[in-house]
């Protein structure tokens, strides 16, 4: 009888201990099929590499594919919050999907950490205490490109971007810093693959340079067609059109092009060197900036979990805000609107052996914060 009683006690105690340990559940919604799959796969692989390296069995990650469709992202988010009861969400690549999911998630007391999309509204008027962006505010890389265009004495840019929130943020960002004239400004369809009409307009416009934001497959199409068109103006872009995943598909057409990024594989710090080597060993390819963002997001979560329980929201939030983790970007800190304050570099596309990649040639903007922080009342 006594044995039985102590056994019951032990069970009760261990159940209690389990409850106190409080497993952390992370829901990742990202694009794993269709046109933008390469971006989502990179974020996921970078994220999971950090989670696996931590080897914590109290962190569970649920991954789902949004197919780049806002409606399926919303459905998955509802399911994750209502029935899976996730504590933290992350993963969304596209700003239109982020706008559909993030405000609802943070309103239901779930933390959302963005590894990519950073729409301006969520940095400004509709910022939220439970929303953190670990990548950038959408405008940031484009602002650096605008600043670079001034340095390179470009006076008459033709600019184009897809017609969706991040596309508008992109051109707004470029124009904020760029002080020359605009030879033309075009919004293309999201997912457009033929740019013959746009290239003809560039040819006719008398521009001295082209700035474009066309992430994923859109950028591949544009660059190949641009190279084939005989229009010979210098091109500047954000890193999204020159990331590791698409450079091989573009080929030599991209060589020498300047682009702006908050990360590159040659940033000199121990965390980055280890990340690049481990990623190559594990997945057999060079990491892209998306992979670095996924990796940083996971490490930020892990660093906060070391300090606070995710159920204690105030403590956990403070731990996230402190951002005490080894970012592959080097120094990393959050501004008051929970968006990064960071260096943005100018890179150039080069060829290493038979692999096309980037190298940093300058710092475009140092310790750069976004322009919407002042609109945020948290």
């Amino acid at each position, binding site marked *: 009888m006594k044995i039985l009683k102590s056994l019951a006690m032990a069970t009760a105690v261990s159940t209690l201990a389990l409850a106190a340990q409080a497993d952390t559940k992370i829901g990742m919604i990202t694009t*794993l*099929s*269709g*046109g933008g*799959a*390469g971006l989502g*796969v990179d974020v996921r692989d970078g994220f999971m590499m950090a989670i696996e390296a931590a080897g914590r069995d109290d962190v569970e990650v649920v991954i789902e594919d949004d197919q780049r469709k806002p409606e399926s992202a919303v459905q998955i988010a509802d399911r994750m919050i209502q029935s899976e009861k996730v504590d933290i969400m992350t993963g969304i690549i596209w700003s239109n999907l982020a706008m559909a999911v993030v405000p609802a998630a943070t309103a239901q007391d779930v933390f959302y950490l963005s590894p990519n999309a950073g729409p301006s509204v969520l940095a400004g008027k509709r910022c939220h205490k439970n929303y953190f962006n670990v990548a950038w505010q959408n405008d940031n890389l484009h602002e650096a490109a605008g600043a670079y265009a001034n340095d390179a004495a470009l006076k008459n840019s033709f600019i184009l971007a897809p*017609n969706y929130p991040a596309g*508008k943020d992109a051109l707004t960002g470029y124009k904020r810093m760029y002080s020359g004239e605009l030879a033309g*400004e*075009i*919004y*293309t*369809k999201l*997912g457009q*693959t*033929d740019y*013959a*009409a746009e290239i*003809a*307009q560039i*040819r*006719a416009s008398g521009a001295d340079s082209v700035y474009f934001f066309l992430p994923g*497959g*859109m950028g*591949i*199409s544009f660059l*190949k*067609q641009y190279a*084939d*068109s*005989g229009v010979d103006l210098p091109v500047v872009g954000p890193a999204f059109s020159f990331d590791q*995943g*698409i450079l*091989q*598909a*573009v*080929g030599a057409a991209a060589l020498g092009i300047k682009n702006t990024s908050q990360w590159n594989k040659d940033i000199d710090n121990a965390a980055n060197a280890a990340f690049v080597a481990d990623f190559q060993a594990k997945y057999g*390819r060079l990491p892209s900036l998306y992979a670095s963002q996924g990796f940083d997001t996971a490490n930020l979560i892990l660093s906060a979990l070391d300090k606070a329980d995710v159920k204690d929201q105030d403590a956990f939030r403070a731990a996230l805000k402190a951002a005490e983790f080894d970012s592959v970007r080097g120094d990393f800190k959050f501004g008051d609107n929970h968006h990064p304050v960071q260096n943005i570099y100018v890179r150039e596309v080069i060829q290493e052996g038979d692999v096309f990649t980037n190298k940093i040639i300058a710092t475009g903007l140092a310790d750069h914060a976004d322009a919407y922080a002042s609109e945020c009342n948290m």
Partner: protein
Amino acid sequence: MSLILILEQVLNGLQFGVMLFLMAAGLTLVFGVMGLINLAHGALYMVGAFAAAAVAGWTGSFVLALMASLAAAAAAGALVEVTVIRRLYDRDHLDQVLATFALILIFSEGTRWLFGSFPLFLDVPSYLSGPVMLPGGIQYPLYRLAMIAIGLVVGAGLFWLIARTRIGVQIRAGEADREMIAALGVDISKLYTLVFALGAALAGLAGALVGAIQSVQVGMGEPVLILAFVVIVIGGIGSIKGALVGALLVGLTDTLGGVFLPRLFALMMEPENAASLGASLASMLIYILMAAVLLVRPSGLFGGSA
């Protein structure tokens, strides 16, 4: 806005239309002859592009790559017809849509499994790269001219096949009355497989041609598929001539609308809003065109009275 720019845009619209025709021709034949709605047609376009990219990477020859795209898409089409599509002819359209939608998913995930999630490299061959100077001082990429030429040649071949050959007679007869030609001793199931493979090969060719100037990636066929459906609805379902006219109309409307609408709005409002509103409206333009055509001719421009 110079005349040269307008002419160049017309060429762009023409080139887009000709590629759409290659897609729509197969779709309209399959619908006209077999009465089947084939959502997986875009997957065959993707198969063609991937086969071309793989063979081009392997051999370095663009001509071999184009042949591979024809062969691979035709083989995939024939295989799908024999194993899946054949069972769907007598079912209603909803079953066909469900089954061919499943095929899209199978093809997409299969391709991802074979080739990975990252876009493949397929480039224009060196002898077709770069621009040429056309009469009137228009600088235009040679490869796009070649695409227009290939598309027109294939289109002419298709008209000849349908109008002048025995197979063509059987295809037209199959469209009109399938029980009757079966009763006359034509092997209808072989004919169906042939038509399906032919449509697939055309889609595969379009995929390979377009893949060289765009990105070869999983899911590349779906946006084109939607446009191809718009084309055959405008042209009249089952009509090759309708597919050609419809494709050129859609190609020109989409290209010219995208260029001129934002400029038109710029006369009336701030350039930034004009660009954004014009772009939004331009992307609706082909659907507005489709609605307008259907209002006047409910069965499409060249559709029968079915």
